[in-house]
């Protein structure tokens, strides 16, 4: 498997080398080089902000296609709760779930159902009092990756539980093996995903060696065919497949995961820039008295994912309607106080120092002084014409040896001016005048 698989990729033919994506990237992972955007692999957290902001649609999310189903004997769809917010007038999840079966899946296991188990496991872990407060949700893979590269001191606050998607896959495979007698490798689990970060999370999971999910199909890819199947469904054909309640469905929106903890001292932030501000404040211990922090990279939560088709606010309104007559929760862990082993992370979240200047502190300090010096000679406009998001980032690129100072058009202009001046000085005195 690739060392750095990313769902977010560039379509070079569409990229015009503008500054939209470099300005927006929360880890400063993008530069424009030779007129095209280049993503620094180890810095990218697959949040999808660049996809959202690119006016030329040059940023894409790699995801799997329905044709991948053919590789497995028994295929199971794992729909994200956000999928339910994409359809108008939906008051029963069974329309969506039966529709998925009509698309060729043998079974459906709702991720919202697994989310209810994760909520219960979180409550148990928090009650046991062993987690460092405030506990930070690990459900959004872009946020976990953001913390890993930008917030070293918060890594041990991240909830060490696998995501609802992963738990849904574990359950789905166990049940399918029992039901069909097939070996695990012939059973394929496909997450119906609202975002590219989940696609990456399947290929390069955090907290587990290998994901049990075999593929991720974008909501936007499946939506046209699925809504077509749903439109043609006769009420008699509806299968009683849904098995989740208010708690599970609410995971689709910001605040859903934390309200499921049934505690008051929580905060839910969404939108990557808001999230960064909250993380900074937690780091400085400026947010006290909180037990749980829910963070979602996308505005509105998962309904705001770049692979959704509906406006996140409309999706929220639709989910409110859907949730209305649901039971609170339909999934429960076995009684007791423990959390099943296969819901836990296998290891801890480890800080990745891809943004630091050097592994050697003394060398890093020298570099920072050089960066300060280079930055002082730049115009400070943060225009992005050099291909870096800010003058500061450009100064860092120069010191790292990835750019040359003359890549700044203002520096270049000054250099040309000086060059022209010295030429004209030569012309004025030192050189002998042409007698003609």
């Amino acid at each position, binding site marked *: 498997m690739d060392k750095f698989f990313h769902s977010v990729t560039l379509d070079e033919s569409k990229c015009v080398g503008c500054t939209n994506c470099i300005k927006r990237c929360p880890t400063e992972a993008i530069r424009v080089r030779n007129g095209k955007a280049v993503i620094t692999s180890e810095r990218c957290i697959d949040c999808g902000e660049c996809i959202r902001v690119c006016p030329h649609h040059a940023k894409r999310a790699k995801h799997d296609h329905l044709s991948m189903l053919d590789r497995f004997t028994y295929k199971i769809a794992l729909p994200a709760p956000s999928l339910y917010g994409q359809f108008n007038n939906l008051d029963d999840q069974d329309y969506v779930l039966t529709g998925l079966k009509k698309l060729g899946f043998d079974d459906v296991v709702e991720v919202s159902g697994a989310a209810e188990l994760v909520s219960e496991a979180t409550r148990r872990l928090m009650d046991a009092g062993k987690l460092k407060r405030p506990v930070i949700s690990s459900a959004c893979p872009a946020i976990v990756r953001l913390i890993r590269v*930008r917030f*070293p*001191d918060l890594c041990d606050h991240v909830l060490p539980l696998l995501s609802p998607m992963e738990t849904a896959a574990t359950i789905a495979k166990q049940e399918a093996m029992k039901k069909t007698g097939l070996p695990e490798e012939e059973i394929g689990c496909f997450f119906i995903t609202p975002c590219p970060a989940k696609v990456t999370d399947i290929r390069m999971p955090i907290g587990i060696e290998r994901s049990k999910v075999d593929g991720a199909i974008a909501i936007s890819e499946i939506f046209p065919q699925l809504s077509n199947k749903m439109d043609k469904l006769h009420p008699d054909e509806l299968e009683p497949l849904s098995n989740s309640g208010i708690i599970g469905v609410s995971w689709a929106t910001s605040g859903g995961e934390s309200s499921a903890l049934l505690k008051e001292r929580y905060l839910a932030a969404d939108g990557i820039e808001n999230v960064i501000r909250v993380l*900074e404040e937690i*780091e*400085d*211990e*400026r947010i006290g008295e909180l037990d749980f922090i829910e963070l979602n990279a996308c505005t509105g939560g998962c309904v705001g994912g770049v692979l959704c088709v509906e406006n996140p606010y409309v999706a929220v309104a639709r989910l409110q309607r859907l949730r209305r007559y649901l039971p609170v929760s339909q999934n429960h862990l076995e009684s007791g106080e423990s959390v099943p082993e296969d819901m836990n992370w296998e290891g801890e979240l480890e*800080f990745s*120092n891809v*943004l*630091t*200047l*050097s*592994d050697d*502190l*003394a060398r*890093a*300090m*020298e570099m*920072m*002084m050089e960066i300060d010096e280079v930055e002082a000679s730049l115009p400070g406009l943060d225009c992005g014409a050099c291909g870096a998001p800010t003058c500061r980032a450009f100064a860092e690129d120069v010191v790292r040896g990835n750019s040359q100072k003359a890549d700044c058009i203002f520096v270049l202009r000054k250099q040309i001016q000086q060059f022209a001046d010295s030429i004209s000085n030569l012309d004025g005195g030192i050189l002998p005048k042409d007698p003609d």
Partner: protein
Amino acid sequence: MSMLKLHYIVPGDDFTRAGEASGDVKHKLKKLGYNPTAIRRVAIAMYEGEINMVIHAGGGEAFVEVDPEKVEIVLVDKGPGIADVSKAMQEGWSTAPDNVRSLGFGAGMGLPNMKKYSDEMTIDSVVGEGTTLKMIIYAQSTKL
């Protein structure tokens, strides 16, 4: 040994900018790959000091020196000075005005927290002239 010197003017007239200097120091220490625990302690200790300068002294200046072993923070103001340092060090003691209390400041935890998060702290204060406060945080300190 290499040393990085940073200097900040902390404006006293704009409360909404309080915390920018300590935020910048934190950001730079992260870029350097400094010890994460030390970064957190520097960020908190300096933030408290910076807020104090804004609330009580009409702003001031911050001088920060970073070397591989330690971070030294010197906060200098020309404010009213601290009449009774030992009292100011008591948890819960505060002379902060009501307008900042409504923002959650003025709980009387500023100086106690600075003491708690730094390895060394000295306060030099003259009533009517101002206060100079020095804090040192060692990169490999095992305090906290």
